[in-house]
């Protein structure tokens, strides 16, 4: 689980016909936000969110005129009648077990008929992916929070995930009008504990090698939130400088959190020192405590030996002491692993666990992967094991990737669940509350939505000897040549009656010896 996986790239497209109502004059707003969360392990997670909301009917209008919303994405929506688009580039693996549940993942509402979902686990995320992502921002990287996005720091981290989420949001309760929302998110986890010589202190400058100087003039809201929850109870052992003017309290991911809020649009904040360098210092060293285990986390591995058969296993952990909850597990497995669905077993606490819903779409060779979707009830404080056996298929010799002995990636499974929360939350106003709390609409405060991805797997397939075609040609040629040679020899050989000659070297030698011995020669 702790092994960082090299990458995950995820594309989620929802295609569908667009039939929306009348438009009014386009209006767009930009909000930007940075959440800094010190993680239990001593690392620091920073999550940027840039949200552009555009009150326009993109799919209906012919001539398109763009302001804050990027033209490239708008044209995509208009041309292909996109309903939603979620694209993320990820390097590293979010360790749910140690870091807690992440803020953001994919959408909560999907329609399978129009859904396109794909993952490219082999691709590498690089600065060349960050640059076009930054260009989509209205302020580019010149002002506001985006000045912190410096590539050499962002990729020198243990986790990096950048994403683009486009979705329509309702403008009124009956959803007769929609607006388009573009959320650009970027989360990084800085290895602050290791690089800071065991100190859990950080500052904006140490993490990003930049400080905040001015808000983006186009943004209607530009804020930095610092999570100060876990340290708030025992007599303030830490101090955040500069001291926050306000704090914000809410139930986030099932627990009560306190955030220090810095509003960049508040001119007093930056004017006093001309730049804002947030710092966190400890008054006395914190006690090392075991990190709280999240209620839902998962693990996945491949087992078996040899190159013919194997088994995919997924372990789902529910650590809630008394509540059971259902989990939707979505698996896409490439066609070259031939799944045997009759071997699908789900066990929790030693007993068989029957899923309440199964959707299985078998793979077609070279056309589509297996799709397996299950709704599983996880009993309280239990480990559920989902395992399925597979057989490795042989590929055509041109279908192997370069370096085939590296193995083939199997995309991570997706877990979606409504996890019961410890503290009841209050319903929030969508437009007013901070961006990180409005990623998923939650109807009531008794549970919260979590979407997790397991590790991508690496499966080695039997690889042929790629010089074989040449060897076969050479061998065939040799066999043909040998057959031909003997045949030719047989045809053209002529027999002569040899006149007895004086003999060869052996006979002369023998005669020499005979003469020495005094025996008559041959």
């Amino acid at each position: 689980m702790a092994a960082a996986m090299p990458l995950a790239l995820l594309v989620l497209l929802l295609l569908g016909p667009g039939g929306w109502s009348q438009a009014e004059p386009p209006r767009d707003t930009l909000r930007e936000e940075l959440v800094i969360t010190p993680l239990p392990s001593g690392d620091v997670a920073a999550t940027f969110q840039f949200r552009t909301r555009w009150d326009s009917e993109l799919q209906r209008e012919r001539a398109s005129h763009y302001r804050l919303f990027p033209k490239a994405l708008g044209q995509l929506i208009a041309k292909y009648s996109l309903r939603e688009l979620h694209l993320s580039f990820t390097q590293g693996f979010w360790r749910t077990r140690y870091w807690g549940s992440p803020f953001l993942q994919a959408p909560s509402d999907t329609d399978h008929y129009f859904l396109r979902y794909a993952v490219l686990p082999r691709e590498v995320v690089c600065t060349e992916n960050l640059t076009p992502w930054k260009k989509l921002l209205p302020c580019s990287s010149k002002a506001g929070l985006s000045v912190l996005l410096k590539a050499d720091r962002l990729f020198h981290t243990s986790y990096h995930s950048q994403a683009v989420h486009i979705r329509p949001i309702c403008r009124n309760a009956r959803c007769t009008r929609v607006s388009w929302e573009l959320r650009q998110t970027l989360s990084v986890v800085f290895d602050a504990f290791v690089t800071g010589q065991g100190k859990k202190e950080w500052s904006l400058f140490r993490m990003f090698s930049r400080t905040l100087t001015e808000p983006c003039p186009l943004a209607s809201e530009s804020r930095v939130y610092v999570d100060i929850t876990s340290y708030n109870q025992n007599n303030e052992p830490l101090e955040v400088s500069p001291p926050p003017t306000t704090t914000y309290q809410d139930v986030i991911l099932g627990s009560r959190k306190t955030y220090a809020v810095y509003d960049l649009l508040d001119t007093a904040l930056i004017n006093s020192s001309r730049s804002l360098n947030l710092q966190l210092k400890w008054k006395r060293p914190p006690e090392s405590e075991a990190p709280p285990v999240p209620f839902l986390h998962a693990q996945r591995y491949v087992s078996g030996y040899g190159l013919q058969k194997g088994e995919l296993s997924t372990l789902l952990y529910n650590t809630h002491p008394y509540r059971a909850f259902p989990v939707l597990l979505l698996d896409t497995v490439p066609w070259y692993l031939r799944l045997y669905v009759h071997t699908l077993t789900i066990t929790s606490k030693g007993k068989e666990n029957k899923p309440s819903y199964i959707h299985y779409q078998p793979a077609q060779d070279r056309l589509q992967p297996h799709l397996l979707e299950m709704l599983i009830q996880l009993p309280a404080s239990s480990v559920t094991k989902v395992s399925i056996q597979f057989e490795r298929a042989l590929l055509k010799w041109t279908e192997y990737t370069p370096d085939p002995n590296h193995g083939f990636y199997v995309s991570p499974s997706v877990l979606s669940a409504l996890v019961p929360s410890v503290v009841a939350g209050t319903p929030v106003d969508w437009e007013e509350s901070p961006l990180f709390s409005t990623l998923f609409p939650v109807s009531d405060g008794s549970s919260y939505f979590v979407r997790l991805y397991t590790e991508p797997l690496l499966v080695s397939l039997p690889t042929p000897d790629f010089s074989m075609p040449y060897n076969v040609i050479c061998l065939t040629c040799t066999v043909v040549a040998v057959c031909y040679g003997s045949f030719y020899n047989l045809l053209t050989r002529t027999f002569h009656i040899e006149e007895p000659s004086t003999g060869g070297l052996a006979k002369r030698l023998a005669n020499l010896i005979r003469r020495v011995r005094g025996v008559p020669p041959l």
Partner: protein
Amino acid sequence: MAVAATSATDIEVVRGRRAALFCAAVAIVLGLPLWWKTTETYRAPLPYSQISGLDALQLRLMVPVTVVFTRDSVPLDDQEKLPFTVVHEREIPLKCEFLQGQGCLVELRSVQRCVECPTKEPECFSAFFSEPSAFLSQDKMSYIGPGRTAVVRGIMHREALNIMGRRIIQVAQAMSLTEDVLAAALADHLPEDKWSSDKRRPLKSSSGYEITFSLLNPDPKSHDVHWDIEGAVRRYVQPFLSALSAAGNFSVDSQVRLGASLTRLPPATTWPCTASPMSSTQWNPGWDPALPPCTLCSTFCSTCLMATNAFHSPRWGGIMVYNVDPKAYNGSRLPVRVEVDMVRVMEVFLAQLRLLFGIAQPQVPPKCLLSGPKSEGLMTWELDRLLWARSVENLATATTTLTSLAQLLGKISNIVIKDDVASEVYRAVAAVQKAAEELASGHLASAFVASQEAVTSSERAFFDPSLLHLLYFPDDQKFAIYIPLFLPMAVPILHSLAKIFLETRKNWNKSEKTD
């Protein structure tokens, strides 16, 4: 006994020799052709001779002109002498590298004796002769209308017909093709020195164009710029583009780039064939960016250091610097709200669009009155002229592409020519010929369509990825595969052939000696 033995040996030797010869014959007669046939690269036949014929293609552009005489505009006895058709040919010699000897013959065909004025817009050019003093003021001899019509003043003179003929030709040339238009269309194919580089201003011919209006605001902190681009596009740009719609598909959009700084000039040379690259946002028109902010592409600037406030980059787009009235800063706090005056901006942009599409200002013959443009800003005969120019340009492009493809395929024998590539080449050749025929018979619209098809097909053939499949197949790998087969087979055959040859020569020498 010995005789029998020698004869038996002789028979054996002869048999062996025959067997060896037979094997060699089979290998050469059967084996070699079989190997040659099975390892050949597939090359579909191409119309090489027709393609080389395109090189010397003589384009003949016909401009049919109908001449209508109103009553009393010509002396009565001259009316009897009027010929039914007159053909006037003019050669425009344009020597260029690929189109050797391509000339253009403009043909004017006049038809007379129709007195009634046609009510709807004519399909071809018409020149009217009349004596309406109300229509033309005394010092003007002719009038060119916004449609395809012109009016020429009649004359009562003994040489009336000759004079009128010259005038008609003058007017018709002004309204149809001139040397300049053709030279601009063929600018890419003509040698550099002959035609100045400002002939290369228009966008290259293409099947579709994407037009983007960008408002660049480098300092959104102090300026809050608004523009009513939707209304402006609807009012000014759409009518112009719908008038131009015969020349291609257009899509219009706009964007606002805020905080975009002026960093570098985009490469003004190449762009993939179908889009007009007017959307680049980061570029530098060459003044010091440290000076007060200047916004571009219909943009604004507080104090700009330039005498002219608009310029255009050939084949790329246009830029307008929009200055903010300095009074706006007085007493108001930042950001200053700026409303862009779209009439001013669109005037400049429409002029730049005309330049980009190569619609030049018409060269009016002396004493001629030119009508004001139609409401969409484009006269019908200007569109005709554009289509002519585009057809000629397309034909030149297609011919160049086909010729270089044929040269390339002739030079490199390793290239696979698939059937679909060959069929594209055939289609392109046929389309070029069809376009040339249609031009010669005066059917402009179908000629333009055919010329576009010629360009599309020829480029599809030229850029087909299957041409590259075996291009880089190395020769040493072929040897590595063939040697294990050929060496063991060839050595015994060559050996026995050499032996037979030696023995035959020895026998021959021996028989000569005995003789």
